[in-house]
């Protein structure tokens, strides 16, 4: 494979995997929290939160990237706040993680939310009567039961993160080895006459990775479903 791909392309693949991995990992807890809130809690602003979560799905990615740049850039208020803690996002691979995470977030939240809605709240009640604090009952009962949903959501998010381009390049630009992800490389190839072949090679790689992830998630979900059994 390394022979077929140039070192630069290889670098892009590795970077994309890293970015997608971290994007999923970082957004997972928040996605579970938000999904729980949307599925279980009744609070003011629930509708607004729902809309907010879906925005990246709806907005042109470039716009999302631009908004990220305004808020998380070195000049942005959030960016400056983060900087105090030594966290740099702009033009850094961590920024690519943020962009990918935000773009994939709605997919993840939807998947997790649906699986939470499928868990009978009466089980949590039962845990509570057994002395479990609601937090504990969430972590020991609900969470294990929504693993299939979390898996499905994560894989979908992973695949989406692998393919994210517009927001990423707008927010963190395209620095080889730092923020040049697979889709950025694909885009670059498509910009030069005759670059289609190279572009397609990279596309195939990302499709293979994404398909692998999708198939794996179906298998995992089935296995978990079996373990948990009929009920």
């Amino acid at each position, binding site marked *: 494979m390394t022979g077929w791909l140039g070192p630069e392309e290889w670098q892009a693949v590795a970077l994309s995997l890293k970015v997608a991995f971290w994007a999923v990992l970082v957004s997972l807890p928040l996605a579970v929290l938000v999904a729980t809130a949307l599925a279980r809690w009744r609070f003011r602003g629930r509708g607004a939160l729902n809309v907010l979560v879906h925005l990246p799905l709806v907005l042109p990615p470039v716009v999302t990237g631009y908004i990220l740049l305004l808020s998380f850039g070195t000049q942005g208020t959030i960016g400056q706040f983060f900087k105090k803690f030594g966290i740099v996002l702009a033009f850094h691979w961590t920024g690519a993680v943020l962009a990918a995470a935000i773009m994939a977030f709605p997919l993840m939240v939807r998947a997790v939310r649906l699986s939470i809605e499928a868990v*009978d709240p009466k089980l949590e009640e039962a845990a509570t*009567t*057994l*002395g*479990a604090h609601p937090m504990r009952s969430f972590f020991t*009962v609900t969470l294990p039961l929504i693993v299939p949903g979390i898996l499905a959501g994560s894989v979908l998010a992973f695949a989406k993160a692998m393919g994210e381009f517009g927001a990423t390049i707008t927010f963190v630009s395209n620095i080889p080895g730092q923020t040049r992800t697979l889709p950025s490389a694909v885009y670059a190839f498509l910009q030069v006459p005759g670059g289609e072949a190279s572009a397609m090679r990279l596309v195939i790689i990302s499709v293979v990775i994404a398909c692998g992830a999708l198939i794996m998630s179906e298998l995992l979900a089935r296995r978990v479903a079996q373990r*948990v*059994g*009929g009920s």
Partner: protein
Amino acid sequence: MTLSVQVSHKFDGFELDVSFEAPEGLTVLFGASGSGKTTVVNAVAGLGTPDQARISVNGRLLVETQRGINLPAYKREIGYVFQEARLFPHLNVRKNLLYGRRMARNRSDKISFDRVVGMLGLDRLLTRHPAHLSGGEKQRVAIGRALLSRPKMILADEPLAALDERRKAEIIPYFELLRDEFSLPILYVSHSIAEVARLATTVVALERGAVSRVGAAAEVLGDPAFTPAGVRAVGAILDARVTRHHDDGLTELDAGGAALFLPRIPKTEGSDVRVRVAAHDVILSRDAPKGLSALNILRGTIVAVRAGEGPGAIVSLDTQAGRVLARVTRRSVQAMELTEGQVIHAVVKSVAVAPEDVGAR
């Protein structure tokens, strides 16, 4: 009083205002569907917040809304057995059983894992998942799970309703054990007379959100006026002691000096039992009957004859064994000229007493 409950709550279209006290033992909440039983039990468990409540168990205050006291459910140290078992599907039986254990580490341990597993016959099931258990097995695990969280009280909301007769018969004895061996206060919802008769120390009858009757089980069920589940539910509860198991499969009981013969009862000689004798299984005879296949004949004095709306009448008589009820036709009342004070014989077939009508006292 062990259990003191006062709850009021308004749903749209339904108003609950319940208040009762119950002594040690098993208290049955009895009433038609929609009378508010679950709402009361949930208030005790701390699931859902009633508009107004004051509940204490063995002197421990669980909630007093007026003083702003409201222990959250997970601090109430209560074991709740739900109608649908509600086992955790991702955990095997062992882990389900131990779920409440960790949270109760600091509490005293007279309830050991092995004892509970042994008592409920769960040994062979420990590694199974709930999806592979039958309804009765599930319910047994649910009881064990509640018990192993070392509760100060057990709640059970129609724990047998989803089971067929055979499974019901399988589970009931475990509640007797909870009541007798673990001496746990139990609040038990049911609308089966058989369960009430067998298990209840105290009966709290609910009707449309209010308490219609509270009292000792024998007293409430033995009252011909109390027929919430239809006339076929009327019956007397006799206290007796197992005196001997005979070789021909009969068990002899001593009920206040009178001998009763019943199909074999799985209790050791000397143990106390309660026997429910349904009123419709009792035949009355003016003369001491002879040449009858029925073995149990109790002589007694009629204390009341109460004609119902239908063709039947309930005759209460005091016997050596206690108060016995007989349901006879009005026609027989006339033919036999039954009146108060009359001496009469009550005939009870041994085999007419169903196995589920005999329980531990």
